[in-house]
């Protein structure tokens, strides 16, 4: 980011000379913030029609995954109050 202050954003300090962990941390932060994804996508031009299709697909995928994760979390609960208490 040439127009911004340098060495503030997207910077990771290396602890005890452990460059691998620092690089992995940096990579994780970048993927979570969607930067690696954006860079890979912008390598070639994406036509607006393809971009709309992809956004729609990612939306549906996100909805599906959150709902599925919710269901799985619900089904895999073990310690809970007795639902049939009193019967």
């Amino acid at each position, binding site marked *: *980011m*040439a127009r911004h*202050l*340098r*060495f*503030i*954003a*997207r*910077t*990771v*300090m*290396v*602890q005890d*000379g452990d*460059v691998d962990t*620092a*690089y992995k*941390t*940096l990579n994780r*932060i*970048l993927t*979570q*913030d969607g*930067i*690696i994804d*954006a*860079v*890979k996508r*912008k*390598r*070639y*031009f*994406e*036509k607006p029609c393809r971009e709309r299709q992809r956004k729609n697909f990612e*939306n549906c995928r*996100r*909805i599906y995954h*959150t*709902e599925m*994760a*919710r269901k799985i*979390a619900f089904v895999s609960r073990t310690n809970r109050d007795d639902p049939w208490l009193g019967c």
Partner: protein
Amino acid sequence: MFNFRCVFNSASALCRQLLTPLNVNGTISQCGSRRLPQQRPLFLSSVRHQEAEASTGKDFSYFPPMPGEDSPLRWAGKKFEELPIIHIKATYNNTHIQLTDSSGQSLVRTSCGTEGFKNSKKSTPIAAQTAGISAAAKATVKGVTFVRVVVKGLGPGRLSAIKGLTMGGLQVVSITDDTPVPHNGCRPRKARRI
């Protein structure tokens, strides 16, 4: 001075918090329990906060010392802003490594091509590693020990160049990512149909 670090952290956390209500409104959720997706972004940012501030017994933080505040960290007697910088440009076909001092004056310049590799062999991690080792050797001749690394681009030599630097004897203090992300500026080339 406005704290950019907090802004950056809260901005990324905010973006995630803004995204989740949009998804929740789009779901056909019958249960109506919307707490789980909203809790997750807070958990992510708080985990990173804990990671950054959790002292492993040594008050180490993943964030670099800001130019305004005075931190006690010194490397070979130099502050963080005065350390020399190694720029690594990792393109898909080649990897360039350039060592500059803190003001930007170039000291050492190596690339996979200057190491004797040609054509497709330049776009390999091994070539980047050799370039890193030779750059570190030239740097130690000039009397450089501690160095900050700035990586640009997503190429094959991205990690192995840093590895080569450490193998050549330089001490890496921090890693910055400077990959240019256009906010929809120039139109890139057309998509390949292989």
